[in-house]
């Protein structure tokens, strides 16, 4: 018997064996998202870079400090030569202050030598490579915590406004308008002058000084955009049959919001969060550059950049390394967000 060639499902069926239709594999929503995401190589690469970045910042930094024998805040007087920071890969006396040129032998004997590898030193002779790694911790912490704060606030406000509508919606929408037009940079400058030193000292026991401060500011002034997105989604979802059904079964408003609406918001939350992390990292860099963010003794990409203009004519690496770190990280987060958006909703835009 000749096998029909126009039936692909029968091609690999041995002749004589009973033909069975291929089982249709049911794929869940998240599996489909994962498959689509996996196809986007740039997004996967960006995700890999972000994972690497977190690993380098939180695992690699202490390991590097251990092997180099000094920390990111250790100052070396001989890390600055002729009033300018020295370049990469330099063996210098580990004396913590400038004690004359040449360095006194007894101090060299006492403190030994140390090695500054990639990046060289900054204006206080600190290891720029280590500061870049530890700075990544601070920048990522600000990015993640600020995103968590603003998205949480935005989701709550947007969900409430979209679900309840009426006067609640009006109040929340007007509040969004007020926050949108608020000159937050001026507010931050004023806040720093009035209470900056006190706010910076809040660490919650585990954060570096200044991180809470910035996360709070970015949350307070960054929630309006996610709120608008969530409100729009909630407005359309509240009219769907499954919400009506839930209401008919006697589910309370809070239960409907929590159990029926919120799961539908996960996709836009994830997509927007990934983009917002990048924005917040840039925000940290900008404010620290202006002297309004992280204290200069605390390494962050912003504080590293802040000292760069002084040396940009002589020691370009001081500007180049943190600049590149910020550039690659923000692009990675943006590409990840882009990839996730395509994965969650290949036909439209979230």
């Amino acid at each position, binding site marked *: 018997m000749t096998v029909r060639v126009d039936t692909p499902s029968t091609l690999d069926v041995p002749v004589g064996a009973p033909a069975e239709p291929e089982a249709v594999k049911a794929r869940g929503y998240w599996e489909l998202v994962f498959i689509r995401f996996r196809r986007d190589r740039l997004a996967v690469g960006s995700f890999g870079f972000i994972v690497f970045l977190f690993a380098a910042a939180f695992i690699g930094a202490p390991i590097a400090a251990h092997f180099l024998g000094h920390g990111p805040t250790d100052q070396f007087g001989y890390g600055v030569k002729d009033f300018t920071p020295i370049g990469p890969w330099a063996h210098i006396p580990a004396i913590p202050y400038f004690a004359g040129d040449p360095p006194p032998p007894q101090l060299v004997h006492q403190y030994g030598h140390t090695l500054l590898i990639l990046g060289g030193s900054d204006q206080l002779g600190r290891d720029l490579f280590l500061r870049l790694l530890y700075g990544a911790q601070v920048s990522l912490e600000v990015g993640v915590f600020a995103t968590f704060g603003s998205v949480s606030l935005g989701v709550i406000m947007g969900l409430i406004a979209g679900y309840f509508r009426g006067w609640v919606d009006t109040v929340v929408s007007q509040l969004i308008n007020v926050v949108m037009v608020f000159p937050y940079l001026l507010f931050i400058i004023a806040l720093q002058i009035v209470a900056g030193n006190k706010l910076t000292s809040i660490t919650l026991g585990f954060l570096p000084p200044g991180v809470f401060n910035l996360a709070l500011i970015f949350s307070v002034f960054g929630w309006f955009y996610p709120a608008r997105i969530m409100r729009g989604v909630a407005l359309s979802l509240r009219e769907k049959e499954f919400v009506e059904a839930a209401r008919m079964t006697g589910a309370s408003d809070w239960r409907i919001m929590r159990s029926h609406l919120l799961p539908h918001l996960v996709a836009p939350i994830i997509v927007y969060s990934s983009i917002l992390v990048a924005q917040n990292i840039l925000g940290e860099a900008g404010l620290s550059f202006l002297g309004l963010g992280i204290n200069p003794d605390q390494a962050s990409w912003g504080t590293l950049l802040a000292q760069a203009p002084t040396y940009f004519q002589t020691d370009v690496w001081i*500007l180049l390394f943190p600049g590149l770190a910020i550039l690659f990280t923000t692009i990675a987060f943006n590409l990840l967000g882009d990839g996730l958006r395509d994965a969650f909703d290949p036909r439209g835009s979230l």
Partner: protein
Amino acid sequence: MRRKHVLSLLMLCMGVALLIAATTVGVASSATQKVSSSKALRGGTLRVNQSAGSFDTLDPGLAYVTNDWEVLYSTGLNLVNFPNKAGAAGSQLFPEAAKSFPTISKNGKTVTFHLRSGLKFNDGGPVTAASYQRAWERILSPKMYAQYGIFDQLNKMVVGAQKFTDGKAAHISGISAKGLTLTFHLVKPNPTFVNILGMQWFNAVKPNMKYTKSSGGILKYPSAGPYYIATNQPGRLVVLKRNKFYHGSRLANPNQIVIQSFPNSDGTASLLQIEKNQVDFDLAGVPAAQVKTVSAKYGGPNKGQFHVGTQACIIWEAFNNAKAPTNNANVRKALNYAIGRTPIISQLGPYAGSASDQILVKGLQGYKKFSVYGNFPNFAKARTVGGAALKAAAGSTVNIYYNAASQVRTTEAEFMQAQLQRIGLKGNLMKADPTDYYGPIETKGTQYNIAHSGWCADYFDPFDFINVNFDGRSIQPTGNVNYFYFNSSAFNKQMDHAASLSGAARANAYAALDKTLMTQYAPAFPLYVPTFRYLTSKRVKNVIYSNYFGYPILNAMSVG
């Protein structure tokens, strides 16, 4: 999808390219330039920047910071003043509004000035003896934001001044103003009295110039010097215009002087503007990190556009003697050993100045060079001297107050923070408001422990460096020059005694006080005697540097 990837990579490349461009754009070289001529010409606009700071106030009754006085010198008319001359000659007073130096009575207690006739404010009003009487009253009145005259003990100098200072009299009875004759009745003879009148507090002001409780003072007012303040936007812009009624010997070369303040800039941008002749001069000088490059580019100091001038100043890190742990003398001494002077100076670039751990500076009566603490950190000695007090303070927070807009000050603060850690203290960086640096530390109860500041001569006398700053009896709720909040009854008595002496005895007494202050009390961390390193644009001519003001004289600069 493919198009998106290409676009992303394109954006990435653009980002990298922009970053590389940003790092290389400033490296453009320019050949060594020389000022073509030193011939002074009138006319044009002198464009001045002020990076990393702004004026506290330009009200002569409240101004007490060097940059404020730099401007007031161009706007004010004093009885006696400093001439537009370079070097030592520029620090010798000459009678300006006064016809001659005063006549002094035989007992030395009555000082009489006769004013020149025809002197006018920029609004055409006459300058009379009452103009100077009012200046005295404004510096001592309780109706002012601060009574800065008290720190110089003016209230004890003139008869009836204390009563006026206490608010018990409407005028100072010891100052008599009749037409163009001004008479001071002193409590006791004072050989430095005429020198004191050279201070910018004693600019002629209108007899009806108001008192003010605002720390910024009165922004605009008629003045009688070569220029007047035409615009004053605090923290931003000051415009000085030529006073057509001034016919004195001081120069008034530019038609106007425009001073823009950039409190949040470290001066790098300003330097580039000067190099491109878009700005003529920066009151903050050349940023420390650029001095070496600038000096090499312009052929070294004082050979062209790059200048270095000495200053009659001592830069110090003030300690708050009223707040733990710096309220303990042994802790303060330990800090003097631990911080290290040379390492900080080495961060300031070439020609920054010379290390010093004493209050008096060279050129002052009674100055005798000594060194108690050395110039390099000595942690072992610091721990020994700090003793039990330092051990008790271990782990406690030391607030380091600094100007975050200045890269140099930030670096300095971070360096001190590291040094403190080595003797068991925890340095906390405390950012200052760049538009009001001194206000918070001059307010009693301030929370700082260490603050960068310094002192320049009001007049060339040791009294001005020691009594003015360290007499604890003068501490007020606000506006404290003694922002160390140092108050020792024993030392107060010694200061009184030294001030009452004259000649060699006075010089010896002040030399001893200088040493006692640093060995026994260490109320501050004297750091160095500074220089002013600055660049002028190609079009600036007639640069006359004043050692007294520590700046080139604005009104003498020529851009015409």
